[in-house]
């Protein structure tokens, strides 16, 4: 696995890797991410020429096509002191697969070496945020963030800093929600059945929000809950943090 560098001091400016999924279908979490990063005191730029990390093609069996798209996104992130993304899965894709797809040199690209998943960045630099929110939430650990990136603690660290917020853990919080990218369309019945298991587990927490750091999981869970007529509401962790900021950006 590629080693990601971790500067100890707050960078002046961060480049936001929007991810195609959030760029297309999750403008709320994207706006919240920007607001939180700015409240931490960094300038946020959104590199114009970024597109996607290539994961949809890689997981569909088309690595060459995936590599071509990933290369474009890494090009657009070159030179950034820090890159932050709001999707744990895309961060994991870049960290885990860049060198396999693009060769060993990829490890030294800014988009790989200086990459932070949102909660990692907030856990490291957002200690001074004044956060308060009266809400009960349960947290879904996205698969790739948990297992490929090895990140389980940062989101909980961030949530624990919010006064008044109660985190109720659901059973099997790190079991897959059934999204799996193109898997969700190749095996819709199975994918939906897996979402139902997750939603049942989440419901036992009796939380107002099912929170996650992955727009993909959230899209899967919310659209399934809506179609099944369940009242479960999902929220990206950046939105929770933004809502908890005392002086909203």
């Amino acid at each position: 696995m590629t080693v990601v560098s971790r500067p100890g001091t707050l960078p002046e400016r961060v480049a936001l890797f929007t991810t195609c999924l959030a760029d297309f279908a999750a403008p709320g979490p994207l706006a919240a991410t920007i607001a939180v990063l700015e409240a931490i005191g960094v300038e946020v730029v959104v590199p114009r020429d970024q597109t996607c990390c290539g994961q949809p093609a890689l997981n569909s069996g088309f690595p060459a096509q995936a590599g071509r798209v990933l290369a474009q996104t890494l090009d657009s992130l070159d030179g950034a002191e820090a890159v932050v993304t709001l999707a744990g899965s895309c961060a994991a894709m870049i960290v885990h697969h860049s060198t396999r797809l693009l060769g060993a040199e990829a490890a030294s690209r800014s988009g790989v070496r200086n990459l932070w998943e949102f909660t990692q960045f907030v856990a490291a630099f957002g200690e001074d945020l004044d956060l308060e929110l009266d809400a009960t939430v349960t947290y879904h650990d996205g698969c790739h963030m948990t297992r490929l990136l090895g990140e389980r603690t940062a989101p909980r660290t961030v949530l624990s800093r919010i006064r008044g917020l109660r985190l109720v853990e659901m059973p099997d919080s790190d079991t897959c929600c059934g999204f799996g990218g193109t898997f969700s369309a190749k095996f819709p019945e199975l994918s939906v059945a897996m979402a139902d298991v997750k939603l049942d587990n989440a419901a036992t927490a009796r939380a107002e929000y099912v929170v996650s750091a992955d727009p993909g999981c959230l899209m899967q869970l919310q659209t399934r809950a809506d179609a099944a007529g369940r009242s479960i509401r999902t929220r990206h962790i950046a939105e929770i943090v933004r809502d908890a900021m005392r002086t909203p950006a």
Partner: protein
Amino acid sequence: MSTGTTAKGEEPRSTAMRGVARVTRGHPVWSGSDLDPGQRPALRPMTAEAVAREGVGHTRQRLEVLGRERASGNWLPWESELRDRGAAIRRETLRDLDGYLSRLAAQLESRGVIVHRVSSAAQAREAVGRIATDHGVTLVAKSKSMATEEIGLTAHLTTLGIDVVETDLGEYIAQVAGERPSHIVGPALHMSRQDVTDLFSQLNGDPLPPDPDVLASYARERLRADFKAAQMGICGVNFAAADTGTLVVVSNEGNVDMVASQPDLLVAVMPVEKVIPRLADIGTLVPLLCTAANKEFTTAYQTLLSGARRPGEIDGPAEFHCVIFDNGRTALLGTPEEEILACIRCGNCQFSCPVFRTLGGGHAYGTTYGGPVGAVLSPLLGEATRDRDLPFLCSLCGACADACPVKIPLDDLLVAGRATYEAEQPRGVESFGWTLWSRFWSTPALYRATRSAARIAGRLIPAGVLGRLPVVRLWASGRTVPDVSHAGDRPRGRSGSSGGSPEGEDR
């Protein structure tokens, strides 16, 4: 076919299988032991049917409990140490697989074992069939072995007019039901206590109580007679020590000892990767296997088979054969896929897999081996022309790799298997589509154009209509269509009010 009844349908020679004609338990074709491996249904309809089956939720919950007990990925310190050692031993084996196999064969022969090294699954089952017919065998007592499932041994022996009875309780239950094992170490895990009660009651002709002890002794009683009557025993192999020629089989019921000691003729069947360098390695590998498979330090029985009965010895098989088959495996050496040959068949990746659990076990993979190990291994076996699409039956959550006691990177192999599959397909809509996609999304202006197109579509086309478009329709079965009408929206930031840096997009 392979339920152990004779081909002609008269009362079976096996006592344990008497009454099997009364069994009416229904099951889908794809879980049957007589499923023609080349003729399984397509994956999507099979999985759709599996998740809709009655009782699948209960099976899933049982598997979840087992998965939680094993807490994949949270290896205790002493378990981690064992895992490191076990993983290293398996890789050491693979580095000189052929050398260890030659040593094993020589050692076995020096202990009076007749070794048959064969290539294909067909050659393997024919070798066993010949041994049986040469000795006029009519009844075989068999202990649990996934390798014999892989080569279709029971069906083959049945066509030769030989009755086969499974003597492991779970495997026996599956055999009576006419189903394939649904899990590597728990063949009947897909059945509840009530299912087994119903099944055995039908077999018995009279109702039996839903008491596991009563049901187990019912099976044990019936199997006793078969151990005595069988002229040949067949067992699998967990580990085969190259330095001593010892075949190690672990079990919890003692049936392996019976199979290996009662009939005069014994055949052990193993694929090539079961070999290990040294007998001493079982000190690592047996506890590792048992920890991963069963959360136990060891099984109740470890059967160490050290050759045929020698003059002066009072028990053991008078004639002992070992069939070692390849079925596509050695062709994997030197490729990234050789990793799967490190597998010790613990089944932990299956417990850890949410796809496997949600499907209610491994039947809906339509192959001998289900779950992550099966999705990787099955496409590589035999002539490697079947089951090539199995790596897609996975959401790539990665839990299996963390659960694997010998650290096989199953998730990476599943990604690789998909690329292999697609590379073999004739160029069609899909590869054209992804190539077009990659051209568009590696060109920023065209990426933004697709984003604008989505935005316009999201605004102008009602969700109900969008949901009927080709790919969207698959998403929209059971889910609402995501709102893309704000694709590309950016909030006005504070610190970005200067218009952003040169590389920044104006927000």
